[in-house]
């Protein structure tokens, strides 16, 4: 039986079945980053996937958009306990980017401008589950929210949706990324509350 906090609960919010356990709704879009927001010019931007042979597949800004943007309507859940429901994004499906990538590895390390990394199993990036997102609510993605482009993998806690994304490297093993080395869960399923080590 949990400890009861005397007098708590008067200002409670309505519960919502779309809210994972331990999360609260916000209408803001809070920012969580470990360091400064980088300035990235789309003229200099590129995105690269590298497989175990060292072969790279690369796209510049225009080549990315030529693959076709999809509308994504999704809920997002931050490990710091806020969730936003019904957000609208536009981005390129990772299925398109991985179309010609042949790898026997099952894990990926996602890399960002500024040095951030996060590990995601390959299967969590495929089959319509992840995008390189460049628009949020009809506008180009703000730099503080990861613009010009961030990974969007909304079925995992949002630190997996790496801001300022620049590439993916295939890994044989599930090696830990930045937050995963600093106390946070290797996988991060919000519905199982996989927050910490």
């Amino acid at each position, binding site marked *: 039986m*949990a*400890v*009861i*906090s*005397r*007098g*708590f*609960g*008067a*200002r*409670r*919010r309505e519960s919502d079945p779309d809210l994972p356990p*331990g999360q*609260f709704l*916000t209408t*803001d879009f*809070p*920012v*969580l*980053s*470990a*360091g*400064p*927001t*980088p300035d990235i010019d789309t003229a200099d931007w590129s995105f690269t996937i590298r497989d175990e042979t060292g072969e790279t597949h690369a796209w510049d800004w225009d080549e990315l958009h030529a693959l076709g943007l999809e509308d994504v309507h999704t809920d997002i859940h931050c490990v*710091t*306990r*806020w969730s936003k429901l019904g957000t609208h994004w536009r981005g390129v499906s990772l299925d398109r980017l991985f179309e010609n990538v042949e790898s026997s590895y099952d894990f990926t390390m996602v890399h960002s401008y*500024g*040095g951030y990394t996060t590990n995601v199993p390959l299967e969590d990036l495929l089959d319509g589950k992840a995008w390189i997102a460049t628009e949020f609510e009809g506008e180009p993605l703000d730099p*503080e929210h990861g613009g010009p482009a961030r990974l969007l993998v909304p079925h995992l806690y949002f630190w997996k949706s790496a801001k300022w994304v620049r590439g993916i490297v295939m890994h044989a093993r599930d090696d830990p990324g*930045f*937050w995963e*080395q*600093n*106390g946070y869960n290797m996988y991060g399923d919000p519905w199982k509350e996989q*927050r*910490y*080590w």
Partner: protein
Amino acid sequence: MIVADWQAGTVTDAARATPSGRVLTLDIPSWPGNDPGQHLDLRLTAEDGYQAVRSYSIASYGTGPRVELAVDEVPDGEVSPYLVEDVRPGDELEVRGPLGAFFVWTPAQSEPVQLIAGGSGIVPLMAMARAHHDSGSTAAFRMLYSVRSAPDAYYAAELADLVDEHFALHWAYTRQAPDGWAEPAGRISRALLERVTAPASAAPLVYICGPTGFVEAAARIMVGLGHDPARVRTERFGGA
């Protein structure tokens, strides 16, 4: 660092510190201790079983059982108003932690450090400043603490006592400066940071904590002043 399960605690002190916030002292018998800069999850349970959890930075450090938080009331929040307005000594709650291994300073670090706090963002930096002082560290510490006005500052008297040859403290006021203050009130600027923070040539480790807009601005200015982005660590306060 495997995070333990929820640990029961008791509020032992709840002191009004600013117009919008209080410093809470908790007694958590099973607290495993924490490094300066870490945070915890705090869980409140209503009599009918309703629960809410929020994360708070920790102003204290070291081994338990005494854990100190400073909580700013978020308008329309559900947890922070309880902690700032309602909770009183003897009340019970639960915590989980400590959490986070990145926004941390320990006395084993000897390099120069620049701390930049906005509002209640002082909390994790206070733990670092306390640990720096208590350990007798000779690492060159500088702190810039930006507040709306003097009464909005947490820990003003204690910070003043920390000032010595290894700890420099600078105040910035965004809404109202004290009488006789040399600078008009205003948001932090490049000119201010250039004047009162450690230069990039000293290669300090920079810790910035506060509301998102403050942290974005301060981090951007420090990088513009030549600091290596990889040596600028940030923590944002959202809340509810």
